[in-house]
């Protein structure tokens, strides 16, 4: 009952004109960003963060805008998957498998509306899951001391690698690189400068927003330049939508699919390190095994093959918010970016967020419900507007993306030095993507590095310099065990699964969810 009262309070916060307009704007921009190949949830949110700051939005308002973009992008990704067989972002790549064949049969409109409905079901119930699961997780998290937090951060990095790359060594490399970058600047506990090489600009440390925008948004511009891919992927003649309402029988046929996929997707989202891509992959694979083990209809335009990944990825998007809000440890690329928003606003996510800033948490959750209904309206009756977006050629889009990134970062600090650092990160992002090094652990490292070190030092200082204090409580040992299992299992079984997942990755797809 407590939860429901808080939720009602949340609606009181979310239902102001400003917040409703921000949610509407976020949903609209998010759907566009999801639909456009080359812009996905993580770089879409990354570009908008600096703007949310410079506009002076408060924490609740910023989060409402940015999570609406996040949810919107999850809806929008399917549009180009279905119409063009090009995933608009990575989680939407499984939707190509059955969505595009449906479109070829002249059922594009039905595939779009069915997947819109599936997205709604996934996101709506995942938001309920968030409401009930997050407070439970908070209760556990309140038992955590510094040693447990250190173990939790380690767990996040070790499990993240299992999903985000085909090569564990490269994920570990990425995590260490990110943590190393976080070390730059004046040490918070003793006040000595570290790795600054006498450069005054570095004393404050690297701004992680600069790193995020550079790695996610600018590197995308370089990828497009490399392939000199400037033409639009769609022309007006190719897009035929047809009837927009799926027949009742189709909805009935896919209802059990949506329910199963929502549950699976949500669980995949809650797991640290897994994100929406894994959610849609698991949902599709499981559904195929269950209803079509011989592969007769799946892959040839089965509506269930459209509903499963869409319900799965939207449910995972909601699930990924659980560890981010309750523990302060994001489970995916985009939630890492959202964590950066909170940290920059001087709000520490984690168990205390629920007691100290209940307005932020519940306002956000209420806004997610509102955003879901807005997205349902935008994505079924108004889907035609968004298909037009696919005709914008990257040669116009990409310069705009680059310039908006520069404007945002310059707006925060007004310093050319930050812009140079951002270009540096853009180039680094391009090289690392060529080398198949995942970028999400780097971001997570720069975000969590200082908190991780502080917890380590606090734990050991409390115990008079005894390093074994790190594995001294059953809770800490449990976390370390999960971390080690999470790191080792992908080494044994993961290569095959991930190879399948990555086999379908389109060059133009976004880098992560």
């Amino acid at each position, binding site marked *: 009952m407590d939860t429901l009262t808080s939720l009602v309070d949340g609606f009181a916060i979310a239902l102001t004109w400003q917040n409703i307009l921000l949610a509407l704007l976020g949903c609209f921009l998010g759907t566009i960003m999801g639909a456009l190949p080359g812009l996905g949830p993580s770089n879409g949110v990354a570009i908008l963060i600096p703007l949310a700051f410079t506009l002076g939005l408060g924490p609740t308002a910023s989060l409402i805008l940015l999570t609406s973009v996040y949810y919107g992008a999850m809806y929008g990704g399917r549009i180009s998957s279905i119409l063009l067989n090009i995933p608009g972002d990575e989680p939407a790549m499984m939707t190509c498998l059955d969505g595009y064949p449906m479109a070829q049969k002249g059922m594009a409109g039905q595939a779009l509306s069915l997947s819109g409905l599936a997205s709604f079901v996934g996101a709506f119930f995942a938001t309920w899951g968030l409401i009930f699961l997050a407070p439970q997780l908070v209760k556990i998290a309140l038992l955590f001391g510094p040693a447990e937090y250190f173990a939790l951060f380690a767990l996040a990095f070790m499990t993240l690698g299992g999903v985000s790359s085909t090569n564990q060594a490269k994920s570990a490399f990425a995590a260490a690189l990110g943590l190393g970058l976080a070390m730059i600047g004046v040490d918070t506990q003793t006040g000595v400068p570290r790795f600054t090489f006498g450069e005054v600009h570095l004393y404050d440390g690297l701004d992680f927003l600069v790193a995020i925008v550079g790695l996610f948004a600018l590197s995308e511009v370089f990828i497009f330049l490399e392939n000199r891919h400037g033409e639009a992927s769609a022309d007006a003649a190719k897009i035929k939508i047809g009837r927009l309402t799926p027949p009742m029988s189709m909805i009935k046929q896919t209802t059990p699919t949506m329910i199963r996929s929502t549950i699976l997707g949500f669980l995949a989202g809650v797991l640290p390190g897994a994100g929406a891509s894994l959610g849609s992959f698991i949902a599709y694979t499981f559904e195929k095994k269950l209803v079509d083990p011989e592969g007769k209809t799946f892959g040839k335009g089965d509506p269930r093959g459209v509903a499963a990944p869409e319900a799965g990825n939207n449910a995972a998007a909601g699930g990924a918010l659980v560890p981010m809000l309750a523990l302060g440890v994001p489970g995916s690329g985009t939630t890492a970016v959202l964590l950066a928003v909170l940290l920059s606003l001087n709000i520490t996510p984690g168990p205390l967020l629920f007691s100290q800033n209940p307005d932020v948490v519940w306002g956000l959750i209420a806004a997610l419900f509102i955003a879901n209904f807005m997205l349902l309206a935008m994505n079924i009756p108004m889907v035609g507007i968004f298909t037009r977006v696919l005709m914008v050629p990257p040669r116009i889009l990409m*310069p705009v993306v680059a310039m908006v990134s520069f404007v945002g970062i310059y707006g925060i600090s007004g310093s050319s030095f930050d812009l140079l650092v951002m270009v540096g990160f853009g180039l680094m992002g391009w090289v690392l993507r060529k080398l198949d090094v995942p970028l999400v652990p780097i971001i997570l490292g720069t975000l969590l590095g200082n908190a991780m070190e502080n917890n380590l030092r606090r734990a050991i200082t409390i115990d008079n310099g005894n390093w074994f204090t790190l594995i001294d409580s059953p809770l800490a040992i449990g976390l370390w065990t999960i971390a080690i299992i999470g790191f080792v299992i992908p080494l044994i079984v993961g290569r095959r699964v991930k190879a399948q997942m990555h086999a379908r990755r389109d060059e133009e797809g976004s880098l992560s969810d």
Partner: protein
Amino acid sequence: MTDRIFGVVGLLLAIGFALAALTINESFLSDAVGPKAFPLIIATILGLSSAVIALRPDESPQWPALGRLVEIFAAAVVMVLYAQLLPEVGFIIATFFASAYLTWRLGSGLVGSLLTGVGTSLGIYVVFHLVLGLSLARGPLGF
């Protein structure tokens, strides 16, 4: 082959990071762990993972031809110039040149590039500065 080079570079990076960590001046007021320990742990992980990458390399990615590399390098140079000149010449002029260049390299024609440059620069100026009130770099001409 790419991964072997990458691994060696990563190993050098790890060694450099560790050496830089060892030169950190300890403050006389320090906690039990000190400012060096965690960076050294990171350097170890960086080094180990680089070694594994070098010893068990993946297939090489498809590297673009030299011309494409020059293209990316040139775009980075334009962005660096943009960052340096932004406070000097003002937002509208700098953004016009930078976006016109990028769209030209992505395949727009001459007229198209100029129009995209003007459109991007004025569009961002109107939306972000005039409507949303963001402060953009102001040049000698006042915009």
